[in-house]
């Protein structure tokens, strides 16, 4: 496994009324797509905004590209040039026309390629015309606004994309295209480009997720390369009659009339010895849901 990181952060801390983000350490592997997973209100958007330099009031230190500090991010243009950020809403002003989006983007970023921006708008069909310079941002649907932001970051020469819920507003065909875009982005500069995105659509994004970070109530509760997580956890199924007896050996357990299904730590599989159970490799969705359920139960006591 490569062990260099595109982002390394320490002691990230941010407090709102009734919410606290507390991340002692965060490492995003370089050359991979990392998914940030968590329930609503877990702090995903807050964390991504801090990384992207949108939210400036926080405690902690962030290191970018193994080179720059978060102070550099505000002082050296290179850092923001190398990073592309898409928000979960839209950051373009509603009354802007597409030509203004293009113009302002090229003022903000010297590495913004106008022609490439138009090409992406056409390819992803932002609005009915694909590229209509007179089209207003306010006339675009949520999905099209997301495509517009994606076109905006792809039009630049970046090494890191930070994307907040890019899949959510997109239709299934476009989500599939987004996965393709992510893979193309990573493949274009083998090992040098990274993506950090949040998502609720774990299943749709599973085949493009290399590293997963699961958050619960402002904290990271689990993380790892997906292939390693799939070995750490097991999906277990068995008879309803045994459900109560095996419950303690399981990480999570759902019991129904016809049997139980749960996630078990592989190292605890011996606790199920003597019971009729079958095991399977879990999907990332199953692991994530189990981890979130487990830790929200722990938090509630």
């Amino acid at each position, binding site marked *: 496994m490569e062990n260099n990181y595109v982002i390394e952060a320490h002691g990230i801390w941010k407090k709102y009324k009734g919410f606290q983000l507390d991340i002692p350490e965060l490492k995003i592997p370089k050359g991979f797509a990392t998914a940030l997973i968590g329930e609503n209100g877990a702090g995903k958007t807050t964390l991504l905004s801090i990384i992207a330099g949108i939210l400036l009031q926080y405690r902690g230190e962030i290191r970018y590209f193994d080179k720059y500090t978060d102070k550099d991010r505000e002082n050296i243009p290179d850092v923001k040039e190398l990073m592309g950020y898409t928000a979960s809403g839209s950051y373009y002003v509603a009354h802007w026309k597409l030509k203004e989006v293009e113009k302002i983007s090229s003022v903000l970023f010297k590495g913004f390629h106008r022609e490439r921006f138009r090409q992406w708008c056409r390819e992803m069909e932002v609005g009915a015309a694909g590229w209509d310079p007179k089209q207003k941002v306010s006339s675009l649907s949520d999905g099209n606004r997301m495509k517009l932001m994606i076109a905006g970051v792809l039009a630049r020469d970046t090494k890191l994309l930070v994307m907040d819920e890019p899949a959510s507003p997109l239709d299934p065909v476009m989500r599939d295209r987004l*996965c393709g875009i992510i*893979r193309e982005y990573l493949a274009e500069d083998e090992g040098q480009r990274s993506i950090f995105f949040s998502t609720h659509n774990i299943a749709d994004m599973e085949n*493009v997720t290399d590293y997963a970070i699961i958050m619960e109530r402002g904290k990271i509760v689990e993380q790892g390369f997906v292939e390693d997580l799939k070995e750490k956890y097991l999906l277990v199924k068995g008879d309803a009659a045994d459900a109560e007896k095996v419950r303690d050996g399981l990480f999570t357990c759902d019991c129904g009339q016809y049997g139980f299904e749960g996630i078990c730590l592989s190292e605890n599989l011996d606790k199920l010895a003597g019971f009729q159970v079958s095991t399977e*490799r879990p999907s990332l969705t199953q692991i994530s849901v189990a981890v979130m359920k487990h830790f929200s139960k722990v938090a509630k006591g």
Partner: protein
Amino acid sequence: MRIMQNSGEPIYQQIADQFKTDILAGKYKQGEYLPSIRGLAKELKISVITTMKAYEQLEAEGLVTAAQGKGFYVNAQDSEMLREQHLRKVEDSLTEAMAAAEIAGMGDRELMEMLETLLSIRKNE
């Protein structure tokens, strides 16, 4: 290369097995590089880490070597090891046939006869 998403067999295993078959069949020559990890992930529509795990497994089996920053290249295949691999494959297939024969209620003699018949058919072809 064909990848089955729902076959129950991990995708990295499917990829490793197919490369292994190709390498042992000589489709990849000694010193030849496998496709880049991220390029293959893109082609197969799977994650980078899955491709990487497949390559790491091939490396652990001694079939390929990782070159820092350049990818994975195919090792010289030891002819002794090659034969060993093929013998294991024959053994596995025969074991599978024996299990099927048992389910079908075939006796040992009947099974041997079938194998002999198949061998003679192939000889006459």
